[in-house]
């Protein structure tokens, strides 16, 4: 057959590599450079900044994992915020009542998964508009937690950091990466697990196929509904874990609307990370880093009004999103309910 038309233009491998990864490598080198330079000037503060970046990044990357599991299978999830909030609240209550932190974490995860099930039911079975479905979850979570929350509940402690032996003593990296509470470690592992599942397993192949061309997957005997349900529920569970991080690990107590927009920032992180777990992790770390820098610089003795320093993370976001990331490819069937006939 004639296969002469529509051939892609040939680009040298190096150019292709740079085009694809250049901006990522550039940003990463920049951040690492600044960090090492700062470490030489003031090791203590720099260590604090790095550790704080990781802490800020954890709920964001978990939220992003939740979002991308859904969207890779074709379900837009803007209810991450609500799933996170309900997870945080249920985890907190479980901790108050039982005092068992492990049980509380599972309760939070289960609450998130339940919200995932609700979203899946609305968007896959009822074929509702998925933006509305997500909004329903956000409002529901805000209402439920606000109504049932009583001021004055006290918990019995929160998850404590576990130092990983000698690793924790490495300068700069040690305290930031190897001296963390369990959910933070779990996040590190989850990023790689989700990456592996999505790109190297049968389930991941089916998930991506369902998100790109559900009909093609259906004609090959893949159960589109099942794949979407499972992914959205798993995503909800991960968002629940992000909620548990907030109440059981970071803060130790609950406040109304304490997720404070993190679920939405997680969506930005997911897009910024090009719908890949590793990308999302990098993006979340950058967001976390900008936030941590901003906090630290407020205390530093610089002759700049603090409002300008407060802008730093947002300016960074705008610059990076507009200038360096380039176009993100959204899964083709994202947000489109699947109809069999």
């Amino acid at each position, binding site marked *: *057959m*004639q*296969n*002469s*038309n*529509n*051939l*892609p*233009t040939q680009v040298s491998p190096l150019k292709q590599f740079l085009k694809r990864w250049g901006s990522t490598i550039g940003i990463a080198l920049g951040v690492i450079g600044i960090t090492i330079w700062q470490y030489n000037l003031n090791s203590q503060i720099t260590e604090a900044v790095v550790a704080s970046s990781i802490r800020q990044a954890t709920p964001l990357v978990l939220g992003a994992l939740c979002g991308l599991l859904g969207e890779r299978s074709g379900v837009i999830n803007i209810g991450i915020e609500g799933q996170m909030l309900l997870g945080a609240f249920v985890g907190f209550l479980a901790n108050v009542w039982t005092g068992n932190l492990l049980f509380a974490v599972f309760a939070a995860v289960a609450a998130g998964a339940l919200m995932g099930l609700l979203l899946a039911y609305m968007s896959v079975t009822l074929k509702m508009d998925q933006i509305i479905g997500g909004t329903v979850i956000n409002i529901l979570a805000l209402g439920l937690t606000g109504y049932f929350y009583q001021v004055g509940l006290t918990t019995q402690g929160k998850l404590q950091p576990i130092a990983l032996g000698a690793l924790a003593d490495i300068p700069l990296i040690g305290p930031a990466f190897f001296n963390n509470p369990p959910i933070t470690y779990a996040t590190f592992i989850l990023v790689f697990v989700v990456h592996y599942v999505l790109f*190297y*397993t*049968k389930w991941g*192949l*089916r998930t*991506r*196929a369902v998100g*790109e*061309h559900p*009909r*093609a*997957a*259906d*004609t*090959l*005997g*893949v159960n589109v509904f099942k794949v979407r349900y499972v992914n959205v529920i798993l995503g909800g569970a991960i968002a629940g874990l992000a909620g548990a991080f907030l109440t059981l690990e970071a803060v130790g107590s609950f406040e109304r609307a304490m997720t404070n927009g993190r679920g939405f920032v997680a969506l930005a992180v997911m897009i910024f990370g090009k719908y890949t777990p590793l990308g999302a992790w990098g993006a979340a770390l950058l967001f976390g880093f900008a936030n941590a820098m901003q906090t630290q610089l407020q205390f530093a003795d610089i002759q700049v009004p603090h409002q300008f320093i407060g802008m730093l993370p947002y300016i960074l976001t705008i610059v990076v999103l507009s200038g360096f990331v380039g176009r993100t*490819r959204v899964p*083709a069937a994202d947000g489109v309910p699947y109809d*069999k*006939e």
Partner: protein
Amino acid sequence: MTENLALEIRHVTKRFPGVLANDDVSFNLRKGEIHALLGENGAGKSTLMNVVYGLYAPDEGEFLINGKPVEIKGPHDAINYGIGMVHQHFMLVPVFSVIENMILGSEVTKGTSLDIKRARREILEISEAYGLEVDPDAIVEDIPVGVQQRVEILKALYRKAKILVLDEPTAVLTPQEADDLFRVMRNLTEKGVSIIFITHKLKEILNVADRVTVMRRGKVVGHTTPAETDQQGLATMMVGRSVLLEVEKAPAEPAEIVLQISDLTIKDERGVSAVKDISFEVRAGEILGIAGVQGNGQTQLAEAITGLRGVDTGTVTLLGEVAPFEKPRYLVEHGMGHVPEDRHKHGLVLPYSLADNMVLCTYYQKPFAGKMLMRNEQAIQENADGLMERFDVRAPSAAVAASTLSGGNQQKVIVGREFSRGIEVLVANQPTRGLDVGSIEYIHKEIVKMRDEGVGVVVISAELDEILSLADRIAVMFRGEIVTIIDAKDATREKLGLWMAGSNPDEK
């Protein structure tokens, strides 16, 4: 007899809300034969095959495979019984590699991971065994349509299909690619595969099929073999009345130049030249056919001429005056009619009524615009009734939404609107794509009528038969260039096919 049947379908009935898509259909497929299933659009061929493949659940009916009754509840069962299907719109994930597309749903794994290496080896083995060459690591969206189709066939063979359903497989191919496909099909039947070949192209059936079953309006209306019939006979069976396959037309009498395209270059969204330095002219009273495989710049060219797209260099001269780009209303008011390629996107406002669709170009003019800001409902209604009668639009009334009509009737609405405006130049891009023989016949007749009334016509089509039967002169586009313009008298299918594939038939 029955032991020779690979597949037998008995008394299948399938209803959709308001439509009886298959009405007591029976059909059988012998081992190793190519059995063509012929019918117009909407005759129920694809529905029947989707039922066989388990995508639709039949309301009644039963299936036998190799003489044994089976139940097919979903594609998964169909695949297990050795049925493979190549859909009209390819079921390939564009961003996946060939390997990923092939193994999806039947993955080979090593531990928890996909075993890509083993899959690649297996694919190469099959591709060699059947002579279907592919690069397993290529990304599907980067490879040409003909190769994508090969991937689809391999996908079925990879699942050990013994019964292969090909749904309108040649719609997207050049004549040479289609010939290649027919060779592949015969090769497959020699290796014991039985093929159901769905089509509405008569010539292809006479070429490759062993037997033919004809469907009309959900029912089987007859069986025949290529030896017993010819194109006219098949067409009559398919439509239910005798049809004219070739448009009857007198020799053209070209007059003055009405449309002149000079040095047109258009870059597409990615900055690649989609149209390269194209020049041609169209005279009043002639039809210029632009042939070419889809995606060689025809869309961009048509959009530029009709005011939907800007250009990088070049001019369009309409009736002696240089026309502005991206000003469709100027063109509408200066005698240009446009039958767009995508009738849903650019031809009609689907949720609007037929009456409103028929005044889309003229609603702001008298008599349709009434006093102040009001519409003149009566004039719009009368216009619609008149056009529906004159252009044989079959619809319950002019008040129904355009989306409820069949493709043929939708196209007649567009043709009615454009042809009745007193135009002097007509650009028709793929005017009969996806239409049945009866509607094609009608629209071709109308286009020739316009020509005879002195309109300069440009017909852009990927269907060679359409170009050959309509055009007085033929231009061939390949990779954004017009590679030749010849008189229709000197054109043959073979010659045009070679031009369309980028080679020059005159230098051998």
